[in-house]
């Protein structure tokens, strides 16, 4: 990795809403994106 950005006290103190930590919220976004894509694939191939 390149030069790391410094964490400032306010960054560390601010609460990450709903998911508590950044790794969890990133995982939630990615899982959500995959679920949406699977739903779109189903929608696209569904026998109406």
């Amino acid at each position: 990795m390149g030069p790391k950005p410094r964490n400032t006290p306010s960054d560390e103190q601010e609460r990450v809403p709903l998911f508590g930590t950044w790794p969890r919220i990133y995982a939630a976004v990615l899982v959500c994106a995959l679920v949406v894509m699977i739903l779109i694939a189903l929608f696209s191939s569904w026998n109406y």
Partner: protein
Amino acid sequence: MSTLDWSVLAVYLVVIVAFGVWAGRGNKRIDDFFLAGRQMRWWAVGLSVMATQISAITFVGTTGQAYTDGMRFLVVYFGLPFAMVILCLTLVPFFYRARVFTAYEYLERRFDSRTRTLTSLLFLVSRGLSVGVTLYAPSLVLAVLLGWSEPATILLMGGSTIVYVIYGGNKSVIWTDVVQMAIIWFGIFLCFGVALAQLPEGIHFQDALALAKATGRLRIMDTSPSLTTPYTLWSGLIAGLFLMLSYFGCDQSQVQRYLSGSSLTQSRLSLLFNAFLKVPMQFLILLTGVLVFVFYHFHPPPLLWNRVEMARLERQAPPEELAQVKARFERAHAMRRIAAEHYADTRTEVDAQLYRQANTALDGARREATRMIEAIDHTAYNDTNYIFPSYIVSYLPRGLAGLVIAVIFAAAMSTLSGELNSLATASMVDFYKRFVRPAGGDAHELLVSRLLTAGWGGFACLIALQAGRLGSAIEVVNRFGSYFYGSILGVFGLAVLTPRASAIGAFWGLLVGMATVWAVATFTAVHFLWYNMVGALTVFAVGLVLSRAFPPAPATP
């Protein structure tokens, strides 16, 4: 449009300008003017990011594209959620903690001043010219639709936006974007609901989807590995990822939105908000276009969607030939309606085949009319952008048509306002404050920032007014833009991913990257979505090699 529709549109314009001016009061320094004092909450910034991205032509163009071609364009956005997460992990913390005004300012701190100057200049040239297109494209459609002259539409749309951006800067941009995005969302749901409600008795939503699917309009996941086929799953996931990284990570019109967040957390959340909502929103817009396609099975569509061109065709085409084409078109439409009703009833493969044939026959009849207008105009004719607006004014109930036209205005103005504000920022911070007057004082800097906003606004209007004459030149400039956004992404990749990258590596890597994309675009048939990836990877690889040959100077103690 009825008086009620005109009133709705007029109220929208007056209220949005007044609100923009009110929301933007209290600017004292350029921090306030360009970054809203770095005080904005994530949801406001997130909506502003979304509003800046969804232009009017995205709104009317993608619904039209869904009508003619189906929903496969949706894959372009598949890379977006992944791009948002990558940006939150990489560029956003660097930008935010460096307390920069522009993305390019960060490159001077990491590399050197010429890399900053070159990247900022590329942004100004590309975005400066494309802002004219942002204004011209919807004005062209709206002028035809509303029966106004093009200059009047351009000046109304451009002028009203310029007023509040000059006065309130980024605060006005973000708060008007919030309102405009709310109007856009409302408009999307409204159009979807009305298109659904206007399906004839006996044709349900499921039947509409079956008809759309039979003509291939629900085909989204094309798994072809071809690099030349547009909108495959892979181009959406991989090339789309690079496209979104370039746009959200290196384009000042987006970077400036999330730099206005009151903290790094707020900036990150604004991007993740987009990661959640963008694909579903685009899905709904495209599905509305598909419903309009089905709607016109049971209502007579016009022979040409552009009513000005239709009037020209009626004036200038040989009358007997035109009458024959019209008769053939009406017959084909009646046949398609019967075939569609049959297929909706039976769902058999035989009826599906008959329905597809009827649909092809209708397309054939329309193509004849297209050929006739092309013979008259001596230029290619494409009216995809007119399909959805034509539906709005012809079939939406009174008042709602005016509201949806206001949605198109909102989509155009939200993009334009963000672009004007970011152009003024890059001009002021990357050029004026460095080369003209580094320490002019708050009042002077605020005045120059407003003058620059006015200048860029005037330039946008000028380009839009001349766009008809500059047509091919604008296309060249837009194509030129796609050559370097990916390459700039490569420079940012070098800046944050490796400490070994040197200024020489970044600068010459950028030039080699742009040349490579130009060569790929000129000598191969690779689809343009891949250009950003080609540029970014080339710059990164060349930059690393050059940085090894010309390592960065050791830091002075």
